């Protein structure tokens, strides 16, 4: 009586192991990518907020201007861009009678792939008096 496995049985066993192993590997890979994406989104949002808070701390309305996309210092894996546009009124006239509103958009992307991680929008006004 032969107690060993035939070649056919061995090949079938290997094939079944591969069929079971591939989905497990895919699940593991997706889980890892999800964890890394979570980190990217977390850091991206904080980098965007850091820039927005920086701009918010300035007292000079006219100094707020667009910044070209560039890697964030110390966080080269992330690229940050600031876009400033005059939303209403006159944003360049320094006379107190001239009102103006600037829209500030901060976008953080993954360097290389360009995937958008965070987009923040805020507004700054000059000579605008709110309320009655």
């Amino acid at each position, binding site marked *: 009586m*032969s107690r060993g496995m035939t*070649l056919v049985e*061995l*090949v079938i066993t*290997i094939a079944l192991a591969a069929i079971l*192993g591939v989905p497990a*590997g895919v699940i*593991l890979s997706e*889980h*890892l990518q999800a*964890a*890394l994406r*979570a*980190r990217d989104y*977390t*850091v991206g949002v*904080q*980098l965007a*907020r*850091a*820039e927005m*808070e*920086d701009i*918010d*701390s*300035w*007292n*000079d309305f006219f100094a707020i201007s667009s910044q070209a996309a560039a890697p964030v210092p*110390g*966080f080269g894996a992330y690229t940050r861009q600031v876009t400033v546009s005059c939303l209403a009124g006159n944003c360049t006239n320094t006379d107190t009678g001239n009102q103006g509103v600037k829209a500030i958009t901060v976008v953080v992307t993954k360097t290389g792939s360009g995937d958008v991680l965070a987009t923040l929008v805020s507004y700054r006004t000059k000579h605008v008096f709110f309320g009655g």
Partner: protein
Amino acid sequence: MRCVNRNAATLVELVIVIVVSAILFLVTPILVFHGVKTLVFLPKALAANDAATEVLHQVIEGGFSTLTGQPTVRGLRFAVRRSATEPALWLAEASRIGFRTADGQSILLRWDDLVASQEVIRRSLPTPSCTPTIGTEEVLPYHAQGIVRILPTVRLFRYYNQSGVEVNNPPTCPPPATIRRVDIAFTAQTGNGVFDEGDAREDITSSVAIRVP
């Protein structure tokens, strides 16, 4: 008479077995090792991410507190000058910051590295002073102590004026009233933060404007 051994393998079968075995022996250990390392790394990566997010949220926005009599404690976003003699910030150092809020809280946040490999940020409510007497403290976040280490990126807190120029370095007490923004930068990591050792690491930074210094 011709003898036939029906229990032996043919040369072709032997070669096929050798080839298949070689492929398995070469590929399987690498996959298994990588898989095990990933399985060990993943929960630590999530823990580091959670701790980093929670620390920043508590420092900047504030939140629920375990301090006696204080169900919530506000964050740096609510730092405000209460009077001419009570500025928003009463302490501004690289690893400690003390601030006042409009609802009467005086909060101290400090980095504590007293216990090796268990570096954390602690929060308390002492009386404002250049040398505050620290009473009861809570860890931020409480669930990560001993698991995730909070390590400053050179300096945990940096201070900037309204022109974006760094000030108060070296620190003075009381801190200058020109501070308009506080940067927070740290690394949240498990163990040594090396992936090959199955540890996770996350560098993170954020800022908060001090609107009424």
